């Protein structure tokens, strides 16, 4: 029989996180504390869930228009204006998608030709590289550095650009490092982007979880709106991961082409989720504020605890991850994570799951209650102390 599979897909490695997930699941030990989850610990606020239920009761169980309910798009447009001072036309410059994930995929597919290079700063979310490969592009990795607090510098960007480079993926606030890009950082890279006539795919799914003054979108930097595909969604901001709802915003001629892929492959985002999301946009700002404050408290707790432990770690100002350095112990991230899990029953994700430049680091999620984090920190402290004693 012939090989049924495409060579493109077979050469893509499965996500490094999968292996660790299997190990933890197989342990099936109630005493294991996992700090490995990349989604909020909050349930979706009740008034949002209620709207979803209500829409089902009303019998709203049909497709919506391909681009998403007009009412929802109008609310998203108002929200982007109110929160980030961004202007997008609800009818022509926006597409409601199945999570931010779909938006990443279709944006890349709509924008690259075979051989085009896509710049991917790492450590970062696991889907950019495979999506670029599936779109026929050549992914080019930019290794972000601890000494820059894992921000992307203009120099790093400049060094990675060739005459084939077309798109830069900009994943900030960042999973797994918690790094952010402030206005001055964005202005510095914008200059390079404009000079080399590149486009940006800005994944701002964690934009509401920013613990400095305010998140700044690169689309807000002069000259960048027309070069940016903005991706955001409801998963992190409104604790709606399971609803699978995100959106992409871009100039009309880009959205038009993304729309075609979305129309043929997806049809439309889940109807129930869209109705619920209208309420999230209208009445959810206070929930978002409360959750952000709660994450911020946990963030301060962990940063402080790691300082006391003497674990090298820059202060993360975004998302809900902290990314400590474990190089002093002379182990790889994988080894450390495995031994820590065996010895103290705490699961964390090795930094290498997010790219080779994550070697020597761990991703620790603080989407957990303070009580849980306290226990986990005690165990980590014990583990680290033993390692240092045995040196």
């Amino acid at each position, binding site marked *: 029989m012939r090989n049924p599979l495409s060579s493109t897909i077979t050469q893509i490695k499965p996500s490094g*996180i999968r292996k660790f997930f299997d190990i933890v699941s197989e342990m099936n030990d109630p005493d294991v504390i996992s700090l*490995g*989850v990349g989604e909020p610990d909050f349930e979706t606020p009740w008034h949002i869930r209620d709207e979803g239920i209500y829409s089902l009761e009303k019998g709203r169980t049909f497709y919506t228009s391909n681009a998403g309910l007009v009412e929802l798009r109008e609310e998203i447009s108002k929200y982007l204006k109110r929160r980030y001072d961004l202007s997008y036309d609800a009818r022509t410059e926006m597409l409601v998608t199945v999570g931010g994930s779909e938006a990443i995929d279709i944006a890349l597919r709509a924008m690259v030709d075979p051989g085009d290079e896509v710049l991917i700063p790492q450590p970062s*979310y696991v889907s950019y590289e495979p999506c670029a490969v599936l779109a026929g592009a050549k992914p080019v990795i930019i290794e972000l550095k601890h000494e820059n607090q894992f921000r992307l510098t203009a120099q790093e960007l400049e060094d990675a650009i060739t005459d084939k480079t077309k798109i830069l993926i900009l994943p900030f606030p960042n*999973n797994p490092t918690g790094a952010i890009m402030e206005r001055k950082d964005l202005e510095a890279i914008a200059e390079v982007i404009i000079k080399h006539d590149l486009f940006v795919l800005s994944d701002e799914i964690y934009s509401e979880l920013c613990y400095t003054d305010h998140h700044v979108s690169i689309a807000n930097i002069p000259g960048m709106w027309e070069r940016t595909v903005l991706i955001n969604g409801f998963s992190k901001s409104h604790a709606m991961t399971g609803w699978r709802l995100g959106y992409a915003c871009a100039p009309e001629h880009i959205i038009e082409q993304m729309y075609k892929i979305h129309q043929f492959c997806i049809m439309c985002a889940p109807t129930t989720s869209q109705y619920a999301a209208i309420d999230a946009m209208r009445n959810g700002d206070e929930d978002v504020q409360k959750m952000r404050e709660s994450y911020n408290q946990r963030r301060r707790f962990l940063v402080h605890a790691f300082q006391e432990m003497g674990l090298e770690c820059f202060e993360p100002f975004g998302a809900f991850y902290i990314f400590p350095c474990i190089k002093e112990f002379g182990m790889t991230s994988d080894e450390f994570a495995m031994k820590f899990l065996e010895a103290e029953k705490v699961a964390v994700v090795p930094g290498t799951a997010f790219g080779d430049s994550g070697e020597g680091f761990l991703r620790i999620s603080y989407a957990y209650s303070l009580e849980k984090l306290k226990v986990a920190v005690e165990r980590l402290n014990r583990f680290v102390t033993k390692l240092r004693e045995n040196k």
Partner: protein
Amino acid sequence: MREQILAIIEKNSRIDLRELAIILGVDETTILNEMENMEKEGVICGYHTLIDWEKTDVEKVNALIEVRVTPQRGNGFDSVAERIYKYPEVHAVYLISGGYDLLVTLEGKSLKEVSRFVSEKLSILDPVISTATHFILKKYKDHGTILGKKETDERMQITP
């Protein structure tokens, strides 16, 4: 800062000063001063514990009593309310809009004890026109906390 402190200690009054300072990103003295001031000003009125008595061997009966009263010249409902809240078995007294005036919550050892309080202490007060007593059969949620249900984490243990 005050609102942030209050939001936290309203849910967990046992949190220690040092931890409170860390998670709010300020020093301990600031917290200490704010708390002392709020105690002095009567913003913080006490540090109580939420107990699910159902899970203990202690027998307790709780009742809500609707009370209609005649307001008094000069001070309206205040003097009647004061007369009622002085009884130690009375848990709470609220002035209510709508069909009656005061809502009194009461805790007693038995139905009999509560009934006796209503008939012998409350109803006979001059300004009291009528009472309606409702016994609480089961508490599902109290002070924003769902009783008796353990929280579970429905999430997968490791996700990207």
